[in-house]
């Protein structure tokens, strides 16, 4: 069976005009990124800081932007063909949950409209009655009460309700792949678990999820497989238990080390130092020489500066680092 989703050597370059000198700056938002998700429903976590390229991957997969080079395949067929010849079907099968529960709602309309348009656009019901019952079913599945939610305007719902509403929309659509872009970062701690539990349930119902986040805690909670991305490159990948318990890449180690543990007996033991490189925004690299993590790596060697380390398999994980 072919893979559900496959990214092959995807590169995305943004050019930014430099006003003062009218010289264009070339930013490699994504620098030779490859990964795949097979047909079996699972949750794949893509973990990276802001500027790492994770949002760009999101937009590319959804067809909102085009890759500069490389291929994106869905069910073995190139994405651009889906978008040209079979847009509706692709849109039906690949959906998204956005990060911001406030801005995804058009403030002009009541929230019901989002669900009705989905049903209409994709012909999910034969008549109004069937549509209504589908809507109620969807809301119930995510723990929302239809009569408390329907007929309201977005500002009348809480952030948690709004995010779950988006889940209801996904539930009604039954996509094959759900791309979730930081879906819980704007929710309170006690709501996150609820939301993520629903995503887990979706997996049991056959919906795969690409979970994009900067938060290792929630990634650990929900995913089967994890990819660590930094400055447009994937540095480490593997089954989630392996990567968390036995991180290989210095960056992964740094990430895990930086997470505060909610236990006053287990505080951070070391102190982070600031250095100039951190002053600049961590955005895509301007050049492709060498390892992208060179500037911040405690283990940096000479060869890391000019050579890109290839992906090496270590047990069940793969890592891009000259230490291995």
């Amino acid at each position, binding site marked *: 069976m072919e893979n559900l989703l496959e990214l092959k050597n995807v590169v995305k370059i943004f050019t930014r005009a430099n006003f003062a000198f009218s010289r264009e700056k070339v930013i490699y938002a994504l620098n030779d990124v490859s990964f795949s998700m097979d047909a079996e429903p699972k949750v794949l976590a893509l973990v990276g*800081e*802001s500027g790492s390229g994770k949002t760009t991957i999101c937009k590319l997969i959804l067809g909102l932007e085009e890759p500069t080079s490389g291929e994106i395949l869905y069910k073995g067929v190139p994405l651009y063909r889906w978008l040209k010849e079979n847009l509706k079907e692709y849109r039906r099968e690949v959906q998204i949950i956005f990060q911001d529960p406030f801005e995804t709602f058009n403030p002009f309309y009541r929230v019901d409209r989002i669900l009705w348009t989905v049903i209409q656009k994709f012909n999910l019901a034969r008549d109004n009655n069937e549509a209504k019952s589908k809507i109620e079913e969807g809301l119930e599945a995510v723990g929302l009460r239809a009569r408390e939610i329907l007929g309201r305007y977005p500002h009348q719902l*809480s*952030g*948690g*309700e709004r995010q779950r509403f988006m889940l209801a929309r996904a539930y009604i659509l039954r996509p094959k792949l759900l791309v979730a872009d930081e879906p819980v970062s704007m929710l*309170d*701690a*006690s*709501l*996150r*678990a*609820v939301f*993520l*539990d629903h995503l887990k349930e979706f997996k049991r119902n056959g919906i795969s999820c690409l979970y994009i986040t*900067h*938060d*290792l*805690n*929630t990634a*650990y*909670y929900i995913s089967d497989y994890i990819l660590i991305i930094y400055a447009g490159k994937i540095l480490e990948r593997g089954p989630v238990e392996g990567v*968390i318990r036995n991180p290989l890449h210095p960056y992964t180690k*740094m*990430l*895990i*080390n*930086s*997470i*505060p*543990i*909610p*236990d*006053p*007996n*287990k*505080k*951070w033991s070391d*102190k*982070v130092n*600031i250095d*100039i490189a*951190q*002053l*600049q*925004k*961590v955005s895509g690299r301007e050049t492709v020489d060498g390892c992208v993590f060179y500037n911040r790596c405690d283990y940096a060697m000479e060869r890391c500066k000019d050579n890109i380390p290839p992906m090496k398999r270590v047990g069940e994980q793969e890592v891009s680092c000259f230490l291995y």
Partner: protein
Amino acid sequence: MDTILEIQDLKVYFRTIFGDAKSLDGASLRVYEREVLGIAGESGCGKSTLVEGTLKLVKPPGYIHSGKVLYNGRNLLELDDEEFRKIRWKELSYIPQGSMNSLNPVIKIEEQMIDGIISHIDISYPDAKEIALEALSDVGLPSDVAQMFPHELSGGMRQRVCIAMSICLRPKIIFADEPVTALDVVMQKLNLQTIGELKERFGVTVVMVAHDMAWHAEVADRIAIMYAGKIVEIGTTSDIFGKPLHPYTKGLLDAVPSLERRFSKSIPGIAPSPLSWPSGCRFHPRCSYKMGVCEEIDPPLIEIEKDHFVACHIYGGR
């Protein structure tokens, strides 16, 4: 420990067309000298409002309904705006939520800091500049930063600048509202550590508002848990994590996913609305230990053991 600031039954309401939203409905708290006090709770519980009320920064349609804030023997809420301005920043300083995004993009960092200093104390420009540069180095920022524009720095660095601004005039208390939210993990650690160190290095008291319990675990000495506009538990960090008393506190701690365990439990029910808080104890609709009295009487905050307060009928006291 000596008390440096005391908040007594502070109430801050917001006028709406549906009536008053009682966002902060009677909070009482003592802040001790040279401690890091964490204020925890989820969105809507009133923690930001508590700080805004204390610093008289409540904007309409909000207003301070009643309560006292005792500092240096005076009730700060009785001071007029001019007098309060003198205290703000010099003795009580504030890092508001999202402040890293409210730096003026067209003015250099140094200038912004100097502007702030000069507007609060009578001092010459060169002296103000010296203070600004010293503050930057106090938080470990290299001196080049002074000459940069905000957009040239990452979010984390800008937040550090805000921390630097808050200690410029060596205040007694710094109020920080969600100081490291929206930063990357590594930056969060960096900035949190700096905030935690302010106490040692400058003898300043820090009151940190944050919903993430893990941050409090890292830097706070004591934590106050808020729910529905009131404080429901106060205790030392080890007490709160080790012996949480209030059912909400327990629920909060269980709900946080971490790398230590792959499981987490959520608190059933939905957060109530400040337009109509539940009767009696506000947590009763969601509490698994609910008793009859909980629906009728709002439990007061009482000291159960040394320095550990809780507002819950399970622990008796009327």
